[in-house]
């Protein structure tokens, strides 16, 4: 059976800022969708199906496309909603990839977004742990003890960071350098949220320590923003684009949840920095894409790193080097915009985090690098292949996509 090649033929973003009070959720998303249609040179009539998603619980709106999709050109279209937490944007893009690859739909619009200012994201993230915590209260566990684990995503991330530093030799200085690298890249990206041109590792080291080893400067902002992309077949893409980017493969892999195991799932026995499932997802994606040596063949990487240590950790888990080598590779300058394997040229999730959109933005950013349309943030080297990643859940969900300038079959 012949594989149907899937190309990215349009990308669009909304403005990414912390609070958009002038638009509602549907209108915010419209900005990205409208820019995407324009980028692709297509109209809603050209779209065969729509895939959408965001973090469900954060804005308190259940299936926002039910009242919003009229703003996105989805009138009477086939539409499916995919939501998987932090990986949502990636999962939406993956579903759109499969929709085209299935042969059932030629041209598919993928939409992912978050309007964090409308809701209460920390509360949303807390419900990840709170349901277990409530059960623990009933078992007589001291609430103060549970509170010491910290709340929201930072709670899990500090343990992951500490474990990663122990295993890799990564220092707090490396964390500072990651933040500086990303925020400087973000300054070149008109769609990024936190732009800090000229930010130095020393500046980052002076920010408030939230919980060791993570400082304020090591953490993503809360962003309102949306991302849209149009995927189509190889044949149709060539009529629209001189140089489309192809999604060669998609893979996800899920581990047990790093939670307290009260509800019949999850344990706290796992090392949150192991991320064996990320390695598996990467392995599967590279296999499907025909990539034998990712270290040589991948030209650019967009790991999903809302916390500084994760850029290095996921660089390793995406099999781009041996475990423990990433800090030295960072020191070598290889991860810079003009380096050998630039990482997070967009500025990454640490600079812009409209949660539901973030994992899709990793894919669109790699696509733009391949198409040579990344503007000032375009990396210096020639880009043929790139890897885009998403991470979420209770540190247990990973999605990986491999993109290329040539289709899979050739």
């Amino acid at each position, binding site marked *: *059976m012949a*594989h*149907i090649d899937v190309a990215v033929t349009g990308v669009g973003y909304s403005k990414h800022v912390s609070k958009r009070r002038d638009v*509602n959720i549907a209108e915010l998303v419209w900005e990205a969708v409208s820019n995407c249609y324009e980028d692709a040179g297509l109209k809603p009539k050209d779209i065969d199906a729509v895939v959408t*998603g965001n*973090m*469900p*619980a954060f804005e308190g*709106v*259940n*299936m926002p*496309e*039910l*009242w919003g999709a*009229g703003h996105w050109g989805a009138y*009477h*279209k*086939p*539409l*499916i*909603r*995919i*939501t*998987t*937490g*932090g990986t949502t944007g990636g*999962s939406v893009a*993956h*579903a759109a*990839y*499969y929709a085209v*690859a*299935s*042969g*059932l739909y030629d041209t598919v619009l993928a939409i992912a977004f978050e309007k964090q200012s409308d809701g209460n994201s920390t509360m*949303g*993230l807390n*419900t*990840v742990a*709170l*349901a277990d915590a409530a059960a623990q209260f009933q078992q007589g566990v001291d609430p103060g003890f549970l509170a010491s684990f910290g709340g929201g995503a930072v709670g899990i991330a500090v343990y992951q960071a500490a474990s990663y530093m122990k295993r890799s030799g990564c220092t707090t200085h490396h964390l500072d350098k990651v933040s500086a690298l990303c925020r400087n890249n973000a300054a070149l990206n008109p769609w990024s949220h936190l732009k800090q041109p000229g930010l130095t590792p020393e500046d980052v080291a002076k920010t408030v320590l939230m919980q060791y080893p993570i400082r304020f400067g090591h953490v993503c902002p809360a962003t309102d923003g949306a991302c849209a992309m149009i995927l189509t077949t190889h044949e149709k893409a060539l009529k629209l684009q001189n140089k489309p980017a192809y999604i060669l*493969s998609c893979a*996800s*892999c*899920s*581990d*047990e*949840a790093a*939670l307290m195991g009260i509800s*019949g*799932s*999850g344990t706290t026995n796992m090392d949150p920095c192991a991320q064996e*499932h990320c390695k*598996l997802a990467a392995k599967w994606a590279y296999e*499907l894409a025909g990539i034998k040596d990712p270290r040589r063949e991948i030209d650019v990487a967009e790991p999903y790193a809302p916390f500084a240590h994760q850029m290095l950790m996921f660089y390793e888990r995406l099999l781009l080097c041996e475990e423990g080598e990433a800090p030295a590779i960072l020191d070598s300058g290889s991860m810079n915009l003009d380096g050998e394997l630039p990482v997070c040229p967009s500025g990454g999730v640490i600079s812009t985090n409209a949660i539901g959109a973030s994992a899709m933005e990793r894919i669109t950013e790699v696509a733009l690098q391949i198409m040579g349309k990344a503007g000032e943030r375009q990396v210096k080297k020639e880009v043929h292949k790139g890897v885009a990643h998403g991470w*979420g*859940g*209770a540190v*247990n*969900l990973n999605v990986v996509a491999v993109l290329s300038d040539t289709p899979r079959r050739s």
Partner: protein
Amino acid sequence: MRREVAIISYAQTPYEADANASREMQVLKVAREALQAAGLKQEDRYTVVTANNDYLDGRTISNMRLVEPAGAWMKNESKAEMDGAYAALYGLWRILSGDHDVALIIGESQASVYARWLPGIMMFDPTFDRQRWLLNEASAAALQARAYMNAFGISGEQVAGVAAKNLDNASLNPLAHNKLAGADAAKVLGSRMLYDPLTEMMMAPYCDGACAMVIAAGELAEKAERPVWIRGVGFAHDSYLTERTLKEMNSLRLAAEKAYAMAGISDPSSQVDLAEVHENFAHEELMAYEALGFCGKGEGGAFFDSGVTRRDGKLPVNVSGGATGANVVCATGLARIIEAAMQIRGDAEGRQVAGVKTAVATGQTGPCAQESVVFVLGGE
């Protein structure tokens, strides 16, 4: 050449108002049974697509905690929102792409856990309707029922008759929980009035449960005993409740057109042997007859009166009892697909209809079936 994909196994929990099991236990049970029936082990390669909703789970990222019970540990896993029929659709895409050969599909929720009608209210426009607290899935359904009944002269007895038929059918389904042998329209009309014209017995009460299904292509499908082939699929989204006509079920009509075209069905009323329809409220089944092309526009009431859709009729609909018999949000549509597959396979025991070769199953989500999925299934 498109790959041929078949349903090769399935499993359902009993559906109960308040199950003595956690959602994880229910999912574990159906995932294990469906995998076993397909001859699969945890170490085999398969992909998993679950269907659920964070507002029903009461926790964010509802699929995150289902990884182990769903047999998805270290698997390529994803989640479709709401109805399991969407998860089945997504699983089908995954297999048709050629990147996967086998998919485990799961739908579940527990109405005994969530605040029954609140997740539905959260579906309405937050800038207006949601905060006015007039619209919920039941009041919206009543507005639709009245619009439909008024436009086409459908009587309360006809709507009640659908509920009575499904309650009676459910009495033959050991998994259903809302059942009443010999139910009649008068009894349904006489039940508690909630949102006129809809009485309590016209509503499919939310309950607890889970179901799972394994679909496959290639060797596994060919070797399977009595595979049920997925001949056609379609899905569609309709406008927001106050911006569309409520007299017709457009999302279902559009989805069915696509599914029929794919399956090569030009005259559904003669080519379809049986249908399992996701009807959250009794009038929706009448509207579905029309949207699925079993009868003409506005003819749903007369079509029902003709007896065609009774279990001894020419085109039985909801022999399982439908959503009326058991309505697990996120599983109801998937259960329709499973029930239709059971009929084709001859697994339906006391409710088996003879000679089912081609069957249609539908799933829906959003107020008044704002979004619909249609599967056309066929035997050998």
